[in-house]
């Protein structure tokens, strides 16, 4: 049976949805081991077992978080060797992609990013050129390294829970020598909203909000959605750059994308055209966003959004 290794960086107190999705994909491919960095609680070990992990690796070093990317790739290379895995799955974040990048060079393994599905033979499915093509790609090497986008599968626990064996992987001192160091960290205030790339629903505002994201945020909160923005809105400083959806921001594929006051030029379209359902509200009937919207409203977002928010609250009781 093929062996698969899932990397989970700092699982914290409970596994994230995206981590559970990686475990679900891993189980469909073969026997699953997990390499964890950071604190590992008994609850997390139990959850890993419930999702089919038969082995859990930890690094001999507890200071990998002090360094950027490189030493984590060195640790993971050790875990791949120890587990005998032929497929490695990581999350598709900046860090995940870069750890995968370096791991690939260390192992002589092909790396595929932005994966949305994996077949039993390791063939990966992804979109390229900002969602205008869907492709299948495969590593031609003994080991393949895949970074998988959130929401690619629905996570499910294993039919039978495993009690994973806990193992330690030795991280050589050379792994951290010369690596870039993280010398300061400042947490951003938490919004309480779902993560933009993982959210089931995204409500996004653009130039048309004219500095006021209030109606966008209120509709998002009524729907339990994440808040997104066009580049025009983030460049204007109306909302943080983290919220930017588009070519130079985040790519999202939610079940529902509500676009408000965004013209829908290519820069924006690139980040959201793989959404399942697109709703657009814009005053300008000529906006390109109406060419791709499943439901379009030519109207003032300052009227339409608050009305929709009130109606949703009413129906949800």
């Amino acid at each position, binding site marked *: 049976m093929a062996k698969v290794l899932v990397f989970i960086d700092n699982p914290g107190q409970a596994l994230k949805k995206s981590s559970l999705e990686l475990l679900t994909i891993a189980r469909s491919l073969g026997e699953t081991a997990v390499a964890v960095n950071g604190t590992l609680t008994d609850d997390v070990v139990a959850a890993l077992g419930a999702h089919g992990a038969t082995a859990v690796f930890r690094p001999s070093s507890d200071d990998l978080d002090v360094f950027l990317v490189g030493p984590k790739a060195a640790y993971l290379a050790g875990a791949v060797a120890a587990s005998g895995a032929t497929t490695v799955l990581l999350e598709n974040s900046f860090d995940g992609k870069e750890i995968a990048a370096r791991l690939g060079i260390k192992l002589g393994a092909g790396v595929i990013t932005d994966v949305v599905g994996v077949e039993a033979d390791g063939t990966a499915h992804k979109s390229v050129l900002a969602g205008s093509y869907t*492709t299948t790609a495969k590593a031609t090497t003994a080991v393949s390294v895949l970074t998988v986008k959130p929401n690619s599968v629905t996570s499910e626990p294993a039919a039978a829970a495993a009690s994973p064996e806990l193992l330690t992987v030795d991280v050589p001192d050379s792994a951290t020598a010369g690596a870039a160091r993280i010398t300061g960290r400042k947490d*951003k205030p938490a919004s309480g909203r779902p993560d933009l790339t993982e959210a089931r629903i995204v409500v996004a505002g653009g130039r048309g909000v004219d500095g006021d994201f209030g109606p966008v945020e209120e509709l998002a909160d009524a729907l339990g959605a994440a808040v997104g923005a066009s580049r025009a809105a983030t460049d204007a400083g109306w909302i943080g750059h983290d919220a930017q959806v588009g070519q130079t921001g985040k790519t999202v594929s939610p079940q529902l994308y509500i676009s408000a006051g965004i013209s829908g030029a290519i820069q924006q379209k690139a980040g959201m055209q793989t959404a399942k359902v697109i709703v657009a509200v814009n005053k300008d009937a000529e906006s390109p966003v109406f060419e791709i919207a499943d439901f379009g409203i030519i109207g003032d977002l300052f009227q339409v959004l608050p009305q929709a928010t009130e109606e949703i609250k009413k129906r949800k009781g």
Partner: protein
Amino acid sequence: MKIIVLVKHVPDAQLDRHLSDEDNTTDRADSILSELDEYALEAALQLIEARGGAKAGNQVIALSMGPAGAVNAIKKSLQIGATEGVHLRDDALAGSDAAATSLALAAAVRHLGADSPVDLVLTGMASTDGETSLVPAQLAERLDLPQVTFASELDVDGGRVIARRDSDTHYDTIEATLPAVVSVTDQINEPRFPNFKGIIAAKRKTITTLTLADIGVDPAQVGKAGSWTEVKTAAARPPRTAGTIITDEGDAGIQLVDFLAAQKLL
């Protein structure tokens, strides 16, 4: 200071982009300098200008790997202010994945550092065509240099590079010793446009062409043959079609909620 900026000639993202029917590689007609590379070039120019510029012997070398047309990305970089250009061009490079690309670029960087050491290799946060963001990290791994990536602020002082890297949950300060590989985001600066003086000056700047033989790379290590991944199939996504469009007559918000309810999205 000697800085190499990696620049890529990519299909203009403002236009429709295509994969070739023959081998699933990117069609490079209507290509331009990748927008995200302009931020790396600007960061390099600001660093050397703070140190007396080209007159003081500082160098910003625009390095591009690609077919004949890639020289246009180098020319644009020279117009913007790079001091010289290097075009890594070899038919055997066609179809290289990130691993093969990083191998060739690492050899080119070593070659360019043979006479005098390179202080920084600067890149954009991703190419606007491949969009994988793998090459900067793979280049750092191959060159065994510190990797400082996704920098939204950058400073070089006393043989160290200090950068700010933003994630969704926090801002990190990253420090490394020179030489280093640094990638920058589109938040780091406002790239300048080439001016008339720059366009004239660019005509006198040198563009050196390098082949794989020049940088000591075996053609079998790059291109499709040397790549560790292959694209098996590619299909254009069917274009989205417009659905129902209504004009608000006072109840569009309610109709919006009706639509969501019908789609079971509430």
